[in-house]
């Protein structure tokens, strides 16, 4: 115990902290510009000077560690004089443009000058002038307001790990450059904006559109984008979100955000939002009243059910919608319609992968805490770039590397390239062999732990020897040994699995190998997901084989429990999966499809086939916030309230339940309310009056959500398995079938880029994100481009058996030599239009990645 006297107050501390922190813990605020709780110590601004007895000169509170018995004074006349002197220095070159500056009102410099002075200027010379810079798509820089606290640099370097900015030049010429303009590797996270104490770096999105004190309404909610589930605060003026900020000390993200979270909110209130229901009349979608639209939907659903049976209908749920929406959606299908034909785009990989992993390690085995990654002693990454898919999770891996943990990647992971990863370069064709060799090597080095005989049987069967590793896997023997030695020697390892693994050839088998690695090193698994509530929708039972709480439909015992609660009968027949729905629509057996908050025509591979299949139905209902590609071919389009406009909960990838709150008012209906209206007409009353009421039902019905309340969720840290009962059955048969490998080595392969800045429907309508990443491009290694005489910016035609895409070329050294990267984010240019798939026999996920592609110079100018 350390006892410190600060301003006459006795402060007791468990461990040595800085005087600044010690004072803060006693409620004494010492002014500072450069110190920040998220950042490394710096000691540059000199404002935090304090008097310490028995020390000869003033000390900076942010750098001085407390020792037992020290006596500190933080506010004396002498200190005030020094602070006034420092502030005078800061002001000599600081423009006094507070009336114009957006920071005014929440500017630390302004507040400090108000407190300490000076009130007049003794500086007669010209101030340093730096013109305002709008070079950056999301930031506005007024560097003449910069006080050189370097918080932004320390944030960018030491926390975000992008290292996109630095202090250039020195002394009075010091300035911070460059942000982006593509020159460096800015990740547009805007975390520099969070820490800038003055008006030097601000978001461009809300420039000159409010004063901080006019942001009267603040709503803490959860990010709509990825599965990390960052806590953010939407600040609102006149029912418009003016900005989104993180809150330090709150949420999984603790003050950090990524570009999507911080800058991606402009879809809320976007002018293209759907406002009224649309009904197809004489071939065109025309506005209709709610009554008309809902009776049409109910009538058609009934008609199809009556003439073709309930199984001629299906629903696609949404990873963008809340747990409550999804719960009501599946209940509607199971009870009002009478079918288990409910699925979602989780079928593209997440659902199958999770089921497979849980089959081996038990339910909840992917529910691991994200901040824990930073404390792992090694992190293995397979199947994607966590810093792009789940950016704030990616930061934890970077933090792990910074703390001395080993980062091991199978394949090249661009976002970790500056974090001294041990990299096993891998092409899709060698990945399986490489993973097999890793498993074999670990089996030799670690031995079998003996806790899972089924899995061990499979591991024993592997007979890959790492002897000819260079030939079979394309990696150097010494690199391989180092990689496996580090893995074998780690005591708190984590395995991060991206969808790219299961969406590539032999995906299911590779997932088995990843699980085998995890088993041998006794790691924790993180299954990445780019959708905010992908986990939640599965937990809500939006799957053809699972009831809420992950209970299998096939067990009568489980069905019975829900039948009692729901007062009806649940079909014992497992429903159609997403892909089976498409097939059923093609062959005419599926007559009606209800799509909530999803865009299958765009978000599923071979999108033309999906479109034709959906056109083949008699009834296509699309419920969304924008008129998507799927909406455009629908018979009826129902406009829903979106993120920030409604209440509810999301479940993130750690299976943390978090509250989504309404930040702005908008006329319209929640997804669940629309469904309830239809259900009423079909004769099943749904009397919910609020999302909370629905959640109350969930907590009664779903065994894993038992007894949870909003109140409890709001307190935070509602972490799996809550108070519930996860299924902990003994593992059954572990499937290890190998799928067929399409394409051949040496051929160019089309692969998916999963960019940091986009997610699809939402990001497309977030202007800031489209400004950062405005159009679809093809990425290639310079050697590949050279082979085809293609140059940066030129157009390239990518042809597959499904058709072609013409895109501008971006040359990128981080792309594999045999790969061509395309995104599936831009209207009319979706990679999925030319990417075909076959389904993996193990996970049921489409193997999309690695289709053969021909490239040639584009023909259009």
């Amino acid at each position, binding site marked *: 115990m350390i006892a410190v006297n600060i301003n006459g107050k006795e402060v007791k501390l468990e461990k040595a902290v800085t005087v600044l922190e010690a004072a803060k813990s006693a409620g004494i605020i010492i002014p500072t510009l450069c110190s920040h709780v998220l950042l490394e*110590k*710096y*000691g*540059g*601004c*000199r*404002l935090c*000077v304090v008097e310490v007895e028995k020390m000869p*000169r*003033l000390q900076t509170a942010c*750098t001085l560690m407390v020792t037992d018995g020290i006596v500190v004074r933080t506010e004396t006349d002498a200190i005030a004089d*020094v602070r006034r*002197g*420092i502030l*005078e*220095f*800061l002001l*000599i*070159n600081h423009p006094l443009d507070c009336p114009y500056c957006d920071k005014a009102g929440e500017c630390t410099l302004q507040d400090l000058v108000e407190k300490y002075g000076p009130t007049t200027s*003794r*500086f007669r*010379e010209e101030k340093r002038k730096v013109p305002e810079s709008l070079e950056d798509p999301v930031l506005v820089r007024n560097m003449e307001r910069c*006080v*050189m606290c370097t918080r932004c640099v320390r944030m960018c370097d030491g926390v975000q790990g992008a290292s996109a900015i*630095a*202090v250039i*030049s*020195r*002394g*009075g*010429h*010091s300035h911070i450059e460059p942000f982006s303009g593509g020159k460096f590797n800015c990740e547009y996270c805007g975390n520099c904006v969070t820490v800038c104490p003055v008006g030097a770096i601000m978001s461009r999105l809300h420039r000159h559109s409010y004063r901080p004190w006019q942001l009267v309404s603040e709503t803490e909610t959860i990010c709509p984008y990825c599965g990390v589930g960052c806590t953010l605060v939407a600040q609102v003026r006149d029912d418009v979100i003016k900005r989104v900020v993180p809150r330090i000390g709150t949420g999984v993200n603790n003050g950090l955000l990524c570009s999507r979270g911080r800058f991606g909110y402009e879809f809320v209130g976007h002018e293209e939002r759907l406002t009224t229901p649309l009904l197809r009349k004489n071939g065109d979608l025309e506005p209709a009243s709610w009554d008309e639209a809902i009776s049409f939907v109910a009538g058609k659903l009934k008609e199809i059910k009556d003439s073709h049976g309930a199984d001629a209908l299906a629903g696609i749920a949404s990873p963008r919608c809340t747990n409550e929406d999804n719960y009501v959606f599946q209940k509607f299908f199971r009870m009002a319609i009478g079918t288990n034909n409910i699925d979602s785009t989780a079928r593209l990989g997440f659902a199958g992968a999770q089921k497979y992993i849980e089959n081996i390690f038990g339910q909840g085995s992917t529910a691991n805490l994200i901040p824990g990654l930073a404390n792992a002693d090694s992190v293995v990454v397979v199947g994607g770039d966590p810093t792009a898919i789940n950016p704030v999770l990616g930061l934890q891996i970077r933090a792990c590397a910074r703390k001395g943990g080993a980062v091991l990647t199978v394949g090249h992971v661009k976002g970790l390239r500056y974090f001294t990863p041990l990299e096993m370069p891998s092409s899709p064709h060698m990945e399986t062999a490489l993973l097999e060799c890793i498993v074999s090597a670990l089996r030799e080095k670690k031995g079998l732990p003996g806790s899972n005989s089924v899995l061990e049987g499979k591991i024993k069967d592997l007979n890959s020897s790492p002897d000819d590793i260079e030939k079979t896997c394309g990696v150097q023997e010494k690199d391989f040994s180092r990689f496996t030695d580090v893995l074998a020697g780690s005591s708190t390892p984590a395995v991060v699995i991206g969808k790219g693994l299961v969406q590539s050839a032999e995906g299911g088998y590779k997932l088995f190998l990843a699980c085998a690695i995890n088993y041998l090193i006794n790691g924790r698994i993180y299954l990445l997901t780019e959708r905010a509530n992908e986990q939640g929708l599965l937990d809500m039972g939006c799957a053809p084989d699972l009831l809420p709480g992950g209970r299998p439909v096939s067990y009568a015992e489980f069905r019975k429990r829900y039948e009692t609660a729901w007062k009806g009968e649940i079909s014992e027949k497992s429903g159609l999966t997403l892909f089976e729905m498409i097939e059923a629509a093609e062959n005419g057996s599926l007559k009606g499809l209800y799509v909530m908050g999803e865009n299958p025509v765009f978000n599923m591979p071979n999108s033309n086939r999906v479109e034709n299949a959906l056109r083949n139905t008699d009834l296509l209902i699309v419920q969304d916030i924008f008129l998507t590609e799927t909406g455009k071919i629908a018979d009826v389009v129902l406009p829903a309230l979106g993120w920030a406009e409604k209440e509810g909960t999301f479940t993130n990838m750690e299976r943390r339940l978090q509250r989504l709150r309404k930040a702005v008012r908008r006329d319209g209906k929640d997804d669940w309310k629309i469904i309830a209206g239809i259900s009423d007409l079909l004769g099943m009353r749904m009397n919910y009056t609020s999302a909370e009421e629905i959640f109350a039902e969930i907590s009664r019905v779903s065994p894993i959500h038992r007894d949870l309340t909003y109140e409890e969720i709001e307190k935070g840290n509602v972490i799996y398995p809550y108070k519930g009962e996860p299924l902990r059955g003994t593992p059954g048969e572990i499937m290890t079938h190998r799928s067929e490998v399409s394409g051949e080595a040496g051929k160019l392969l089309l692969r998916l880029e999963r960019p940091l800045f986009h997610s699809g429907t939402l990001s497309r309508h977030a202007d800031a994100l489209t400004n950062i990443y405005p159009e679809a491009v093809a990425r290639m290694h310079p050697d590949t481009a050279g082979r085809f005489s293609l140059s940066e910016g030129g157009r390239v035609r990518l042809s597959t058996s499904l058709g072609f895409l013409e895109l501008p070329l971006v040359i990128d050294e981080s792309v594999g030599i045999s790969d061509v990267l395309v995104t599936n984010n831009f209207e009319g240019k979706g990679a999925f239009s030319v990417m075909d798939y076959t389904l993996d026999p193990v996970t049921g996920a489409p193997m999309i990645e690695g289709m053969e592609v021909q490239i040639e110079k584009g023909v259009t100018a």
Partner: protein
Amino acid sequence: MEKILLRNIENPESAHIGEYMKAGGFRSLPKALEMERKDIIEEVKKAGLRGRGGAGFPVAMKWTFASADPKFPKYLLCNADEGEPGTFKDRPILEKIPHLLIEGMAISGYALSAEYGYIYLRGEYPAAKDILDRAIGQAYEKNFLGDNILGKGIRFHLSVHQGAGAYICGEETALIESLEGDKGQPRIKPPFPVNVGVFAKPTVVNNVETLSNLPYIVEVGGEAYSKIGSPDCPGPKIYCVSGHVEKPGVYELPMGTNLKDIIFTHCGGIKGGKKLKAVIPGGISTPVLPPDKIDCPMDFVNMPKHGSMLGSGAVIVMDETVCLVKVCYRALKFFEHESCGKCTPCREGTGWLRKILGRIENGEGEAGDVDLLLSVSSNILGKTFCPLGDGAASVVQNFIKHFRQEFEVHISSKTCPVQGLNA
């Protein structure tokens, strides 16, 4: 006094290892390798050797701290970033007798159990870079450096790292940052380099001249060494004298030689028989002295008693033709240029001071400007991250303290009474 450090300096081939050895060089290293490491440190302690970079920190104490730290490897850095205006005392060692430094570093490296040494050489000494590289090559050939020095199983590797022209990199933590490849800015202390230095390992940073004393200390023993010069800070000292003296140059004299004697005896007095106006005794950041205050022994202990500091021992002599406002302006221009920009008072204050001084020198000063200078400099003094800002502030304060009248005349007469700024 017989030259000790610079004993072979007149030999035109002195930089060659053969000539160095002919003059008795590389005899201390084998002797040192026969000694216990702690005994070498003990001899240094007995010798009373204090760092010659300017601060005068006891070398043995620094070494003891680094030796006591259990972390390995340890590093020995030679601070050859000789950038203090007026200072050129290390240059003759670097360019003329590099092997003295190399031998000193090899001995020190052994004493400290450091296996790696770097000479951080100021970027503006390109000739020294080549000379040192050549000399280090020769030392490797003779097995004075390497994995198995003189077959004793001792390892010490040495290489030269060139700075990029920043004065602040003479500050040891900034030097370490720069050596690591980062921007040269001082680090927060503690931890001190002796515990967490370069690459986060225990690191000793010593000046060129300091390390060059090691062969002699080993040769004669600490006891005998301590008899040279001032009893409180003994040893030979290299003074470098510039400005208006008849014989400017580098002088190796016993520590504590009287400043007056340096100027009037060793350097032959003021050039052309003019009147002495001011002396900066230890490099630009040490307080200026008027002619009536220069009767003082030039060492770490006595100079502060006489209102200045020994600093690097760089004596700048100015005669009556010099405008001291201009000198002050020029000094501040230097500090402004060299301020690293990390802390507010130094970054903003040095430039402001320079601007005020510039307008005074240009005849555009206003009543109150001298007080403004004092006020601004007192807002810097003691508030900066490292001593660079203190140096800048104290230059202004001391020039005004001794020569306030000259500043006031500039302001009242609206011109420089001595010479125009651009003359």
